[in-house]
């Protein structure tokens, strides 16, 4: 059986009549970098708050690091580093003082090593020079880094990071990504929520997609991209011939559009777009072009479309990122 860092069973949270999260079954394997995707208002943060014991579920249960949350918070939470819905600190305290305070709040935070651990964490996120400044003088990006430093004050088994690159400049975003990768390399499970698909694609081994409080897809990234991997599109006036060639190559082409080429002579009219799902690898695509040309098809355009997670995301959650009320 797969060893899970986070497991929820029919986890549900209602606020009044509205179900913010309904019957979700998350399964986050240990050691994975797990992307938690969904448009705004889809219930990501409520789920994270339930995992951390901040919000009680209405029904269902969650196991974090193998123990029941919130019942076992005392033994679970010290092993979890978290960034929940943006960083938050006492504005009148320095960055270092804020971290010292949060570490003191953790009964297991060792006092003798506290200062060293705070300095190390600040160093890892590049805030050493600003350690003594009050947080109110920090930029959003600096606060975000401080939030990450807080999550890594102690060795953690699981990091739950809600939008960790929010507010960071491109340089900072890259640094955070490499930090996350280094945690993952150490064996820490990382659970990242984001609406930035590119980020999830670059970072994660697994992902779940939430929409309107429910999980609409979950698995490894390859599983999520779906079975029909690549699509090939051919633009040619010789539609019938091209279809025949594609069929003989074992594909199932569909004629997507036939449009009269504007302004050209009637003889050159009726240029068609043919697309087909390609189950083969890119080298077979090269052979396909050769076959088309050999058959005398006038290839005016040939494109290979690898489906991005974004296509899948939009397909699952609907265009427009509407907030579901």
């Amino acid at each position, binding site marked *: 059986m797969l060893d899970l860092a986070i497991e929820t069973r029919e986890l549900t949270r209602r606020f009044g009549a509205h179900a913010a999260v309904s019957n979700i079954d998350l399964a986050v394997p240990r050691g994975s970098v797990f992307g938690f995707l969904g448009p705004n208002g889809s219930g990501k943060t409520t789920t994270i708050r339930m995992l951390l014991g901040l919000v009680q579920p209405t029904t269902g249960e969650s196991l974090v690091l193998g123990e029941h949350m919130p019942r076992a918070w005392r033994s679970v939470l010290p092993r979890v580093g978290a960034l929940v819905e943006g960083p938050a600190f006492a504005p009148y305290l320095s960055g270092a003082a804020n971290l010292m305070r949060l570490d003191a*709040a*953790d009964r297991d935070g060792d*006092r003798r090593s506290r200062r060293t651990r705070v300095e190390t964490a600040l160093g890892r996120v590049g805030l050493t020079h600003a350690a003594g400044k009050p947080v109110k003088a920090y930029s959003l990006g600096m606060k975000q880094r401080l939030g990450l430093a807080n999550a890594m004050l102690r060795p953690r088994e699981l990091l739950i990071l809600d939008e960790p690159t929010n507010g960071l400049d491109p340089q900072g975003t890259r640094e955070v990504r490499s930090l996350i990768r280094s945690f993952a390399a150490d064996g820490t499970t990382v659970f990242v929520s984001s609406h930035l698909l590119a980020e999830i694609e670059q970072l994660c081994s697994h992902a779940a997609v939430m929409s309107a409080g429910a999980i609409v897809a979950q698995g490894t990234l390859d599983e999520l991209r779906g079975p029909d991997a690549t699509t090939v599109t051919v633009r040619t006036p010789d539609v019938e011939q091209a279809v025949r060639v594609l069929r003989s190559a074992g594909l199932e082409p569909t004629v997507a559009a036939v449009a009269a080429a504007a302004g050209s002579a009637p003889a050159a009219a009726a240029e068609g777009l043919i697309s087909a799902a390609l189950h083969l690898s890119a080298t077979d695509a090269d052979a396909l072009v050769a076959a088309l040309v050999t058959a005398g098809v006038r290839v005016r355009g040939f494109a290979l479309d690898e489906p991005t997670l974004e296509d899948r995301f939009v397909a699952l959650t609907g265009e427009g990122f509407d907030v579901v009320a």
Partner: protein
Amino acid sequence: MSSPEITRDPQSIAPVQPREKRRRLLGIDLVFSELTVLFRRRRSIAMLVAVALIPVLLAVAVALTAQELAPGEGPPFLDRVTQNGLFVGFAAMIIAIPLFLPLTVGVVAGDTIAGEASQGTLRYLLVAPAGRLRLLVVKFIGTVAWALAATLTLVVSGLIIGSILFPVGPVTLLSGDVVGLGESLGRVMLVALYASISLVGLSAVGLFISTLTDVPVGAMAATVIVPIVSQILDALPQLSAVHPYLLTHYWLGFADLLRNPIEWSSFTSNALLQLGYIVVFGSLAYSRFATKSILS
């Protein structure tokens, strides 16, 4: 598939000494942290300065107006200030206990949970994890420490300004007995203790109100209103049946500490009453906070 276990048991990071173990069990570090944060805040320092200014203003006003007050004129003890500087602290306490000291306690107690919630730090403290009960207890300890600090600031400031502006000597008590300087100082500290105890019930009320909202100013205002309402009710003779249970009923009873022998009955009644408020409002605060959804 199983990834290597890093630190399943937090205690296994380093060997833990028995003393260290006890410290962790109580989580004393958070109390120190809370007190440091509370007393180093600019707002707290400003309030303590304001508290210290009360006896100063009072003493300066008395010293500048040459006219002697007739015995019994003005607030209690004020007529004695010119004869003995030690009375500045008592007179200032009479002035500050009905409104100004509870105001500062209301600010600190109302801010406890609601302030963390509005700042967003509540979720990080709980995820740390501070533990909900432990966080409430630590916040309550902080408020009680605040009440003690405020009353001590008041009487110490009174002693200092009183000894600068007026003669200081043996104190004639309300019972007519005269006690020496050393014992007088002891009585002054007893008065400060009495006033601090008077404010712990309000601290518990404020803590409870603070768990109800994410808006610290609202919690502060609501907490400050409680002693005002209580004092109004205490002044209505028609309600004499409930008077002994009112939060503020014994607040001015510290005068009994200025008799010989000391009249302890109001001290004891006050302490018991305040304990009752701690039990009732502490329980309410916990029952509210233990399962509260932290959405801030």
